[in-house]
């Protein structure tokens, strides 16, 4: 039965003209073929920031943390932890922009999926690095394996994050097998090792009907699998907070609230990434205005979902104003953090929920500006979730030095955070230098929508 199918498919390929396909291939392989001066400057800049981060971490670990880091007993989780939450949230971009769209048959996912997946892999790795930077004794990291307690939410988080990393990497590389074959056959002027790498990673791909079948099937299984995993990583990350008795985190809403925020950040991050990649590699024919239009609409939808969970999270407890929540909530609404809090509400929720409703705001440039606001607000939102509440514990903070009361991240901490951002962009940039950042075959397949599937192109 199956064999019969394969033979019948074999006869129906080549509905796609060879010429069209060659143009597409040339466009999409161009970023790998050559690297401009600006590209080199950009990579050098990112490497420099990363090295600063490595040096800052070296100082932090060799000198007294009381001096290098502004964390104290009350605010014992600082910008590293909020940065960790941000990166875990960002890594859900792969779930939304690749898996969900793919499974719901939105064809415009095709040029976006690989961009989303590589950002997801980079973000989740840097989330891990942020956590290690926050540890008091990173030399004892392996105790988590040798003495791990399954009762602790940290151990749950490590389990789901590692599973997600593994699944995301596999999900990134399996659809890349045909692309690797394309690279192997069409790239010139590349060093021997790079060609060898393409050869190895193409796993002997020949593009037979059977190989396509296996590939499609495994991608589908992984795509389905990655959705619950993605939701779990961020839900468990929310539980790191929600399993404590602190008033600012004591919420049954926290998992859904975090996941909805991550989806909003995912769309915004995607807009920025698409804008930059489109400009840098001149891929306007593939990352079209249509994509910005669709992403703009998605941004509105996700903003409304996020606003809904924010109302649950802040306004419902604020209505009751119970003694336990009062301190923390009033501090956010009208206290020390009020300007900060309301700016995040404005830029992180109200603007993305309203402005992209106007069609002209869904053009590439205006939408990207909105998305940049959302990404920045999303980072500060995590800061507001993690930090201000710690300065308002149940028992008053008294008789301590000033630095114990007010936390503001030290230079070392900010350098390491900046380095995590640089490292994320560096991973994505380098990826685009070595691998097609837009999947050649997926785009080609999309162009054939409604026609018979192309089977044997290399």
């Amino acid at each position: 039965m199956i064999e019969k199918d394969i033979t019948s498919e074999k006869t129906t390929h080549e509905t796609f003209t060879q010429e069209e396909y060659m143009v597409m291939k040339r466009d999409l392989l161009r970023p790998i073929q050559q690297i401009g001066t600006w590209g080199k400057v950009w990579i050098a800049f990112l490497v420099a920031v990363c090295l600063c981060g490595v040096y800052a971490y070296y100082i932090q670990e060799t000198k007294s943390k009381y001096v290098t880091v502004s964390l104290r007993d009350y605010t014992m989780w600082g910008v590293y932890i909020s940065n960790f939450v941000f990166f875990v949230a960002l890594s859900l971009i792969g779930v939304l922009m690749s898996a969900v769209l793919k499974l719901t048959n939105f064809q415009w996912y095709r040029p976006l999926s690989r961009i989303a997946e590589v950002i997801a892999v980079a973000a989740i790795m840097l989330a891990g690095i942020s956590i290690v930077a926050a540890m008091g004794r990173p030399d004892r990291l392996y105790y988590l394996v040798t003495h791990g307690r399954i009762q602790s939410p940290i151990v749950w988080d490590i389990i789901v994050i590692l599973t997600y990393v593994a699944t995301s990497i596999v999900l990134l590389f399996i659809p890349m097998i045909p692309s690797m074959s394309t690279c192997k056959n069409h790239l010139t002027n590349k060093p021997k090792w790079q060609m060898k790498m393409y050869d190895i990673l193409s796993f002997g791909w020949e593009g037979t009907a059977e190989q396509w079948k296996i590939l499609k099937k495994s991608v589908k299984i992984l795509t389905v699998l990655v959705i619950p995993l993605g939701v779990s990583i961020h839900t468990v990350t929310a539980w790191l907070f929600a399993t404590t008795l602190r008033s600012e985190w004591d919420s049954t809403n926290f998992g859904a609230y975090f996941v909805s925020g991550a989806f909003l950040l995912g769309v915004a991050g995607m807009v920025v990434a698409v804008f930059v990649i489109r400009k840098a590699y001149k891929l306007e024919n593939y990352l079209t205005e249509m994509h910005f239009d669709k992403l703009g609409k998605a941004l509105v939808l996700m903003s409304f979902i996020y606003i809904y969970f924010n109302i649950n999270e802040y306004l419902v407890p604020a209505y009751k104003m119970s003694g336990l929540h009062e301190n923390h909530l009033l501090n956010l609404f009208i206290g020390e953090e009020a300007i900060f809090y309301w700016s995040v509400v404005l830029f992180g929720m109200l603007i993305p929920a309203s402005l992209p409703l106007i069609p002209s705001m869904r053009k590439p440039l205006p939408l990207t500006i909105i998305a940049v606001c959302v990404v920045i607000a999303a980072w500060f939102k995590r800061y507001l979730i993690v930090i201000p509440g710690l300065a308002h514990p149940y028992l008053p903070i008294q008789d301590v030095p000033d630095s114990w009361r007010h936390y503001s991240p030290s230079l070392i901490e900010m350098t390491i955070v900046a380095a995590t951002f640089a490292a994320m962009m560096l991973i994505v940039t380098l990826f685009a230098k070595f691998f097609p950042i837009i999947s050649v075959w997926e785009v080609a397949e999309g162009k054939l929508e409604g026609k018979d599937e192309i089977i044997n192109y290399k």
Partner: protein
Amino acid sequence: MKKENENSGRRNFLKFGLLAGGATLTGLGLKNTLFASPPETGTKVKVLTADGKMVEVDSSMIAHPSEEKLAEFSIREGIPGKKFIMVIDLARCANARKCVSGCQSMHNLLPPIEFIRVKRMQDTEITAPYWFPQTCYQCDNPPCTKVCPVDATFKRTDGIVAIDSDRCIGCKFCMAACPYSARTFNFGRPEQVAYNEEHAKDLNKCGATKSGTEGTVSKCDFCPDSSAKGILPACVTECPNGVIFFGDEMEDAVTNGEETFRLSELLKKRAGYRQFEELGTKPRVYYLPPVERAFPFEEATEIHNKAE
């Protein structure tokens, strides 16, 4: 028989009951007798078993839980047969801060790091403020030990929530989980590090919680080494006003070194309460409300922990 009872009295008698009856594979005396069975002395002693029966055994079967033997406990398991408890009488506290300094010298801490803190509290606008000494509450439902990813902080059988600073990875999740902010992190404050180097020998007087390990969490630990030997914790002995009472819940008695009260009666008579009972943490530290105060409230004029 007479001799035995004269010397030991009711306390040892009960202790034996606990040790023998608690059955107790970890129990000290009985375990030895079971495996070594020393020669019988011929003297019979009446003892009370855990289920309330009076039995007569040979005196060789009885091992007295001496101080040395009580001190031989596993740090992770705790002192057998004990359930430490603390009562803080808010009516007596005048913010003398001797508990703070006593604790700091016991644990080799330099200000501003404090395991016991004295806070100014005021319940409502119309009630008088009072001083509120706060230790780790050694909760019976501890939120901190639940979240530890490596079992570095744990609940012992004697009620103490202890920390193994050789295990702690410094994730500070326990600090986030503690609603009382009782825990402190060793960030390696330069003065503290220098002090620890100078006093390397007398570090870790309290056994369970080593406060000198950089990058780990520490906190009030009820001075377990002293408690094992029957010596009161530093905060109790240092207090000039006898504010803090310490004892064993199993003995139903607490003492501040001068006065001893029956725990259950004291809590009932003085309306003892636990901080934030509604959080369900079941603290092992009780407060007696500041009524019929020994001193009028005076604002603290001195700022103690100003230095960074």
